[in-house]
């Protein structure tokens, strides 16, 4: 089985297959509940990135890169940054940069409330998740390249 040689053992692969989706979901949960519970864009973004890195560690880099290739990661990173900036600029509508421009601030402890903060969290999570994944792949690919040159 050629496939077995890439990545780790069968046990690790099976466990990964079971858990990776849960990790991704948990990251998304943390992002979406960032304004209610501890966590938020950065922590959630890191967990989302970790789910892909987990995949890469277990199955080898080809599988993970097939799911999210590097240009796509870079694209998401830029989109996250531009989206965050756009939210900030939309604050100008009310006269202030970064203004929480929804008039209704909502009620505490409610998922759909608190104006722009969830949107900011989503933008940050895109930026952080894609950025972290891009950093990791960059380091991994660099190492492989330098080994190849020897």
């Amino acid at each position, binding site marked *: 089985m050629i496939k077995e040689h890439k990545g780790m053992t069968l046990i690790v692969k099976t466990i990964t297959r079971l858990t990776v989706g849960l990790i991704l979901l948990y990251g998304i949960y943390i992002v979406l509940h960032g304004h209610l519970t501890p966590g938020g864009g950065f922590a959630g973004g890191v967990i989302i990135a970790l789910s892909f890195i987990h995949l890469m560690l277990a199955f080898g880099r080809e599988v993970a890169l097939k799911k999210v290739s590097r*240009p796509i990661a*870079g*694209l998401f*990173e*830029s*989109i996250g*940054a*531009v989206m965050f*900036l756009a939210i*900030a*600029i939309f*604050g*100008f509508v*009310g*006269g*202030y*940069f*970064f*203004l*929480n421009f929804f008039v209704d601030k909502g009620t505490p402890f409610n998922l759909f409330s608190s104006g722009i903060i969830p949107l900011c969290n989503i933008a940050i999570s895109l930026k952080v998740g894609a950025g972290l994944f891009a950093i990791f792949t960059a380091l991994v690919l660099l190492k492989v390249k330098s080994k190849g040159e020897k």
Partner: protein
Amino acid sequence: MNIVPLFVVVPLGTAFLISLLGKRTKGLPDILANSGTLLLTVLSVGAIFLVKGAGVQVYKVGGWIPPIGISMVLDGLSSFMLVTVNLTAFLITIFSISYMEKYTAKWKFYTLFMLMLGGMNGVIITGDMFNLFVFLEIAAIASYALVAFGIEKEELEASFKYMVVGELASLFILLGIALLYSFTSTLNMADMGRVLIADGPGKLVPFVSVLFLVGFGIKAAIMPFHAWLADAHPSAPAPISAMLSGLLIKVLGIYALMRIFFNVLGIAPSILNILLTLGTISMVAGGLLAIGQSDIKRMLAYSSISQIGYIVLALGIATPLALLGAIFHLFNHAIFKSLLFLNSGAIEYSTGTRDLRQMGGLNARMPLTGTTSLIGSMSISGIPPLGGFWSKLIIVFAAIKSGHTILGLIAILVSIITLGYYLKLQRYAFLGSLKDKWKGVLEVPFTMKLSMVMLALICIATGALLLPGIREVFLKMAQDALSIGQDYAAVTFESIK
């Protein structure tokens, strides 16, 4: 609509747009970056007149009222710095259109460049202590990456050295900010100043002062902390060397030092003495080290240390006249050091070498580079009608007037040393007979010429900034913002209402 936040929004937005679109579309990064910096230049000139007309501007980010929310403060000093940074950055981006063709990933260069510019503008404009740290780190990280842009052996080594030293400096600054926060329980600079006036400096402020002095001293490459500069600045591509040497060390080092020591902590006589000593040491030692260099960019880097010494010396004298001299010299140095680094870049572009001993007679083949470089060299060594003369004159005058006669004499002496090594540069690179192997050398492309000529013209014209009428708008406002000292807090809170 208020223009204050645009100084951060425009460069960051440009950076992300370039990284989003620039990879596929060729030529778009050039257009975006140049129009971005042009817009910033226009805005910063507008900012000067805004401050002149309407006084200090405080911008409340997100509508939160300071000291609770983050604020951005635009006063005389910051508007002056914004003009310096954005004008120079605009001319450098023009230069890099052609220069960066020889590197592969131009859009990466522009992204990092605009990030660095955004970080610098943020440092200048912010009124919040921690925000200053964050913007400082943005600018610094972008500069680490830019130093290593060529990924050759020397560049990587220089970048690593620069990074370790620079990170250490940042951590000192962070520690200082943490201590200040624990003392004043606020992060707004104006509020911090107010609390420090009310409570007195206590025992903590001298300690924090030392931490900041080390941190910003490393960033500004004042003499005992200078070792990284001579490696990092020559290794970067020429536009980045111009950016680092002309702007980054001033914004991250000198500007932050001025703002925090004069306006927030309140300057103590002991700190002034330290600044005087460090300034003199770096002035003399930088000049002496520069003489022996044969690598053109390395010589310019050591010369930067020497010129930073002048600024720090003038800050240490701290009379209003000396502060005017410091600010004026800061502007002048940004202009002529950028010009000289761009000249060295032009030489490297055409001949492919940075070694002075291999050059010779390049005036015959590259007359424009030669002439602009002559203007820059003469200005930096203080030859009368040019800008550098006036700022050095003011500094020497202020030193003698405040009783530091010996320091004034040393400043004149270093000026002569400066003239010496710039004459060496001219002699080796441009004068004399043309060597055979440079017979086929061509003058650089049009955009590079344009940028160098414009910088040289500004170099000639800066003396006019001292004329009454112009001085009130440009230099006097910045000097006033510094010399009010801790009244900064009162002025800032006044303008919030």
